[in-house]
C-alpha cells in the first residue's frame, strides 16, 4: 500500500463500494473513524523536558493530524495520516486527479501544484505541510464561463503534448514560470521548466506555448 490518504470528515463512502472506494476506505479508516466521532485529534503536551515545564511547548500529534486548507477556493477540514503526501490527499482523498503521479520522488514534475501561489511538487510535499495554506491545482484553472486559461489554449495551439500525462504539471509549472518572471526567453523558459519531464518529447511545442501565453498573461 503506497497511499495513506484520508477521507474527508464530512463525506464517507456510500453503500455502493467499488474497488477504489474500498481501498480508500481501508487506508482512511483510522482517521475517518476518529474524525466522524469527534473533532480533530487533540494535541498532547510534550513530555517534561529539562527546561522549566513549558505550557507553550511543541505540539505532539499521536496518530492522525488535523488539517485545514483552501483548495481551488474551497475550504477543507480533514484529518490525515502524517505519512500522506499532498498528491495522494488530492488524488485519493479529494478526487482531484488532475495532478499526476509520475515518479513519486520529485524527479518528473507531473504532480506540480501551487501552494500559496508558488509551484511545488506535491509528491514530496507532506500533506501536513498544507495546514493553513492555499492550494491551486489544474482543476482550479477553469473559469466561470468554462473558457480555457491562456496557458491551456497555448498548449493546444502549439501541439505541446502527445500522451498528455505530464501536461497538468507542465501547465501549472508554466503559469508559475510566467508569474515569476522566468519566461522571458526560450533559453530561460527551458532552464526554469527543466523540472518537468515530457517523455513524448514535446519540448519545442511546450517552449513555444509558454512564450505565447507569457505575452497574453502579461497583457491580460
Amino acid at each position, binding site marked *: 500500500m503506497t497511499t*495513506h490518504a484520508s477521507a474527508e470528515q464530512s463525506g464517507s463512502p456510500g453503500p455502493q463500494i467499488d474497488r477504489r472506494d474500498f481501498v480508500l476506505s481501508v487506508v482512511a479508516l483510522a482517521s475517518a473513524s476518529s474524525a466522524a466521532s469527534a473533532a480533530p485529534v487533540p494535541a498532547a503536551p*510534550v*513530555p517534561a*523536558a*529539562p*527546561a522549566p515545564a*513549558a505550557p*507553550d*511547548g*511543541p*505540539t*505532539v*500529534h*499521536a496518530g492522525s*493530524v488535523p488539517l485545514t486548507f483552501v483548495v481551488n477556493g474551497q475550504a477543507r477540514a480533514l484529518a490525515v*495520516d*502524517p*505519512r500522506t*503526501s499532498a498528491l495522494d490527499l488530492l488524488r485519493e482523498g479529494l478526487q482531484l486527479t488532475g495532478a499526476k503521479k509520475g515518479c*513519486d*520522488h*520529485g524527479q518528473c*514534475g507531473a504532480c*506540480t501544484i501551487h501552494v500559496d501561489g*508558488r*509551484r*511545488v*511538487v506535491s509528491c*514530496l*510535499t*507532506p500533506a*501536513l*505541510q498544507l495546514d493553513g495554506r492555499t492550494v491551486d491545482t489544474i482543476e482550479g484553472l477553469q473559469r466561470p464561463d468554462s473558457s480555457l486559461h491562456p496557458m491551456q489554449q497555448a498548449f493546444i495551439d502549439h501541439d505541446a503534448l502527445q500522451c498528455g500525462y505530464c501536461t497538468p504539471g507542465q501547465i501549472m*509549472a508554466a503559469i*508559475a*514560470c510566467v508569474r*515569476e518572471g*522566468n519566461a522571458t526567453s526560450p533559453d530561460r523558459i*527551458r*532552464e*526554469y521548466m*527543466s*523540472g*518537468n519531464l515530457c517523455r513524448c518529447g514535446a519540448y519545442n511545442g511546450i517552449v513555444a506555448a509558454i512564450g505565447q501565453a507569457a505575452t497574453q498573461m502579461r497583457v491580460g
Partner: protein
Amino acid sequence: MREFTLIRARSGAQALQALAAYPDARLMAGGTTLYDLMKLGVERPQHVIDINGVDEFKRVDTAANGELVLGSLARMSDVAADPRLVSDYPALSESLWRAASQQLRNMASLGGNVLQRTRCAYFRGGEPFACNKRVPGSGCAAQDGIDRGHALLGASRHCSATYHGDFAVALVAFDAVLDVLGPNGMRTMPFEALHRLPGDRPDLETTLAPGEIIARIRVPATPLGRASTYHKIRDRESYAFALASAAVALQMDGPVVREARIALGGVATRPWRAREAERALIGQRLNIETALAAGFAAFAGATPGHHNAFRIDLGARTVADALMIASTRA
C-alpha cells in the same frame, strides 16, 4: 513508509525541547530529502519534528556591504534571486539556481540543502545493497559496483559516496560560518567543518552534536565575491546532479591573480576546498594554461575507481573554465 509521530515546533526553543524529548527524531523543513528517503525506507524515523513554523530561522539579511545572514529555513529559490547575491556573490546565486528544479527550490530550505544526503544508488537502493552509510559494517557495494558517479577525492574503502550538494561548495569557497543552536545555546563554527570525511564511519556525516540545529549561515563580506561563478557540468544541461562542478572566486591585479578561491563539487565525499589549486594560481597571470594547471592541481590527489576516471580530466577543465568565466567579472 514507517509510521511516525508528528511534532510541530514553533520556536527554536520548542525544537530543542522536542529533540531533547525524542533523541531519535528527525527535523523536517522542506522535506525534499527526508520525505523522499522515508518513502524509500532508507530513513525510518519514529518521530518527525516539523520546524517550518520556526520564524527565527527564516530571517535573511543581505543589506549592502555587510556580511550575508541567511536563515536556515530560507528557501533556495528566494535566496537564489536575492539581488545582493546576484550582483555581489554570483557563485552563491548560481549554486542555488543550478540545483534541482524551481519547484524543489521553492520547497527546500538552506539548512536542509546543506545537510542533504548522498544520491549514491547503493545508499538509496536500500536492502539489496551493502552500504556502510545506511547499515554500518555492512560493506560498500560501490567498491565493486558501478562507480561512474562516485567520489574521486576523500573516499575510503568503506565509502566513496559523492556529496552532491552545490550550495555548500560555494559556501566553503567563501569561508562561510554556521550558527548552531543547541542545548547550551548558540555556537559558531566554520562551515567547512560541518561535513566529515567518510573514513571508517561513513554513517557519521556531520559534526553537529545530537540535539543541535543549524540556525543560520553567515557569509563574510569579501572583495572576492563579485568575480565568482559556480560552474556545473552535468549529463544534461539542467536539472541533474554535477558530474563535476567548481565554485571559484578571484581578486585580480590587472592580469595577475592576487587571491583565488576554488572549491569542487560532485567529485568528492564532502564539499571540497582545493587550496593547492589556489596556491598554484596566486601571483600567476591568468590564462587558459595557468587555469588548466590549477585545475589539474586540484585533482592531484584523485583516486579513480572503475568507471569514474574520466571525471578527473572533466573536473580539471571545469575548474579552468570556471576561472576564465570568473575573470570576466573582475
